[in-house]
C-alpha cells in the first residue's frame, strides 16, 4: 500500500488539534459530555446518521458506496479514569473517590482540573520534612487525601463545586518531535483515530462509529451500543500499556504487554475476549501486505469494549487494536506519532479489503 493510502503518514494540523482538545477535555466515566461535543463538532458534517443514545454513546453512521454493505462497528471510549468529588471538608478541601482503575500512589501532589470549567486544584501532600520513617513506607489512603482549591472556608468551596463533579489530572498536551505527551491517551487516541476514519468512506462498508461511555468502569456503554447497532463485525480501538523499558537487572524483558514504535497492537486474547480468528488473520495479512508495522499485544489480562460487544445478541465477530502508550492511567502518558498514524492506516486498509470471508472462523 503506502503510496495509495489516503491516510497521511504525518498528522495534519487539524488532527493534532483534535487530539490535543480531546486529551485536555475533562471526561471521567459517566461525564463524557465535553468529549462528546468535541467529537460531534468534528464528525457531524461527515455523518449519514448521528445520535446520542440513552447512556450517552455517540453513534455515527457513514455509508460507503455500493450495496449489501458490511456493517463494521468501530468502538472507541470517550471516558477516562479520574476522580469524583464526594463532599467538601471543613476547611474547604474536596474529598473524592476514584472512578476507574487508578493507583492511589499516583495521586498525592498532582495538580488537577475540576469540572467542565477546569477549576484548578492540587491533591495535597505532606512535605517530606514532616513525615516519619513509618509514614514514608506506606501508601497514603485515598480517604485521607483532599483536593486544595485555594479556599479556606467550606462555604467558599461549596459555591464552586458540588458532589459528583469529576476531576482529572491537569496535564497539557505536548508533541515533542515523534512523541506525544498527554493525559487520557487511553482512549482519546482511539477517539481521534475513529473521528479521522469517518472522513474516508469505504466502498462496500457501512462504518458504525461508536464513541462509547463508561468503558473504564466495566465496558458499559459498548454493551448497549452493540445491541443497538447489530453489526456484522466489530473492532475496538483502544490504548494499551507499553511497559517496554529494560528490566532493572538487565535480563530480557518478557512481560512488556506492548512496545512503543512497533506499530498497532493487534489482540489475540485479553481477559475479556478471544479475538475472532478470521479477523486476527485478516489484520495480520493486511499489515504484512501493506508493509505496516504491527505487533501482537501480549495475551494476558485487561479488556476493551470488544469484551462487551462480542457477547451481544447471537455473538459478534470482534477484535481489538490498540495504540501502545507508556504510563497510562497516570497523570501523564507517552505515545509515538508513528504508532498513531500506523494504526489509522492499518484499520483503514483492513476495512478497505474486508469481505464476509474474513468472518470465517
Amino acid at each position, binding site marked *: 500500500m503506502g503510496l495509495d493510502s489516503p491516510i497521511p503518514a504525518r498528522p495534519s494540523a487539524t488532527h493534532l488539534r483534535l487530539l490535543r482538545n480531546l486529551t485536555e477535555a475533562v471526561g471521567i466515566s459517566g461525564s463524557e459530555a465535553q468529549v462528546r461535543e468535541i467529537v460531534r463538532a468534528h464528525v457531524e458534517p461527515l455523518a449519514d446518521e448521528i445520535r446520542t443514545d440513552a447512556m450517552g454513546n455517540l453513534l455515527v453512521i457513514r455509508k460507503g458506496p455500493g450495496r449489501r454493505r458490511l456493517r463494521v462497528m468501530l468502538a472507541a471510549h470517550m471516558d477516562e479514569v479520574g476522580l469524583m468529588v464526594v463532599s467538601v471538608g471543613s476547611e474547604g478541601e474536596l474529598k473524592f473517590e476514584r472512578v476507574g482503575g487508578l493507583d492511589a500512589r499516583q495521586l498525592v501532589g498532582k495538580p488537577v482540573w475540576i469540572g467542565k470549567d477546569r477549576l484548578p486544584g492540587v491533591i495535597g501532600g505532606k512535605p517530606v520534612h514532616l513525615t516519619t520513617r513509618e509514614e514514608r513506607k506506606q501508601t497514603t489512603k485515598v480517604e485521607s487525601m483532599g483536593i486544595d482549591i485555594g479556599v479556606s472556608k467550606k462555604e467558599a468551596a461549596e459555591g464552586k463545586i458540588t458532589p459528583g463533579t469529576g476531576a482529572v489530572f491537569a496535564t497539557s498536551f505536548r508533541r515533542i518531535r515523534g512523541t506525544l505527551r498527554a493525559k487520557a491517551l487511553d482512549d482519546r487516541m482511539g477517539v481521534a483515530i475513529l473521528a479521522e476514519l469517518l472522513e474516508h468512506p469505504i466502498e462496500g462498508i457501512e462504518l458504525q462509529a461508536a464513541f462509547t461511555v463508561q468503558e473504564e468502569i466495566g465496558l458499559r456503554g459498548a454493551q448497549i451500543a452493540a445491541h443497538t447497532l447489530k453489526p456484522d463485525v466489530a473492532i475496538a480501538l483502544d490504548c494499551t500499556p507499553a511497559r517496554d523499558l529494560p528490566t532493572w537487572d538487565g535480563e*530480557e524483558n*518478557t*512481560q*512488556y504487554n506492548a512496545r512503543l514504535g512497533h506499530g498497532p497492537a493487534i489482540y*489475540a*486474547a485479553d481477559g475479556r475476549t*478471544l*479475538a475472532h*480468528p478470521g479477523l*486476527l488473520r485478516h489484520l495480520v495479512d493486511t499489515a504484512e501486505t501493506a508493509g505496516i508495522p504491527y*505487533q*501482537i499485544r*501480549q*495475551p*494476558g489480562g485487561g479488556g476493551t469494549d470488544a469484551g462487551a460487544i*462480542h*457477547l*451481544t*445478541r*447471537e*455473538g*459478534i*465477530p470482534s477484535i481489538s487494536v490498540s495504540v501502545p502508550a507508556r504510563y497510562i492511567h497516570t497523570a501523564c502518558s507517552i505515545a509515538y506519532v508513528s504508532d498513531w498514524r500506523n494504526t489509522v492506516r492499518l484499520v483503514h486498509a483492513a476495512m478497505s479489503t474486508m469481505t464476509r470471508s474474513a*468472518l470465517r*472462523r
Partner: protein
Amino acid sequence: MQELIQRLVEAFGPSGKEDQVRDIVRGEIEPYVDEISVSPLGGLHAIVNPGGGTKIMVAAHMDEIGVIISHVDGNGFARFHKIGGVFPQTLVGHRVRFEGDVTGVIGAEASVEIGDAPKLAEAFIDFGASSVAECPVRVGDLGAFTRPFVKLGNRYVAKSLDDRVGVAVAIEAAKRLRNSPNEVQFAFTTQEEVGLRGARTSAYGLDPDVGIALDVTRTGDTPKGIKMAIELGGGPAIKVRDSGSLSDPRVVDLMVRRAEAAHIPYQLEVLQAGTTDATAIQLTRAGVPVGVISIPCRYIHTPSEMVDAGDVENSVKLLVEILKAPVTLDRE
C-alpha cells in the same frame, strides 16, 4: 462410546480454537438431526424436530483449558499466559501441543524452589529450539495440554474429559433419540472455560424454553477429599446448585422423576466451587429455567481427569428419557 470419547479427548481444542472438535461432532451428529449451523462464536447448533413442542437447549462445551504464547525470547524459549483455569502445579514437566503438530515441554526458572509451583510468569515452554527463528510458535498461538487416553478398570482417564465427555453424551443421546416431541437444540458451545461465553450467545440465538447443560462435576470420594456427596459410579449427578446458578426446581424434579421411572441411578449435586453453561443460559433474554446433568469426575483441570464408564452410559440414558417425552414445566 469409548472410541468416540477417545477421539474427542485426543482432539485439540483450547478455548477459541474449537474447530477440530467441531468437525468431529458435526461428522457424528449430522445424520441424526434436522438442522445444523455454526454460530458467530463458533458453536455448533444441531436441531431435532425444529418448530415442534417445547424448545430444549442441551449444551455441552467443546473447548478445553490451555495456554497462549506471549513472548519468544532470544534463545527460543516461549513465555505464555493461561487460557481458563490452569493450575500452577500442573505446569512443570507437562507437555503442550499447538496447531501443526508442534509439541513443547514446560519448564520453570531456577528461582522457583523444588516442590513449589511456579507462577505463570516464572514458567516457559521449551520447543527444542535455540533461537527465535527456530521456535515454531509466535505470540498469540493457542496450545493445549496433551496426554493419551487410557482405560483403567471401568474408568476412562484423559485430559479434557471436561467437557468432551459431555459432548459425547449429547452425541450418543442424539443417535438413540432419533426423534422427539420437543424441539431439541443440541448446542456444542465454545469458550466455556474462559467465562461461559459461547453459551450466552448461543442461548440468545436459540431462545429456548428450557436449558440443560451437560458437564463434569467434582467428587468427594478420594482420600481426604472435599466434602461432597458425589462419587464415581453412583450415576449421573442432577445439579441442585453450584457457585453460579440455582437449578430451576421444576427441572430438577423432572430429571429425578424420569430417572426413577426408568430405574436409572442418580445423585443430587451441590457443588461449592465451579459452574457450567447453565449459568449463562439461565440469565439470557427474559430468563430460562435450567438444570444440569453432571458426570462425576476426579482430578478436573489436570491432564488426567477420570470418569466412570457406567456414569457416562447412565447419563446418556437419563438425557434420552428426558428428551423423548413431552416436557412441560408446570408452576406449582
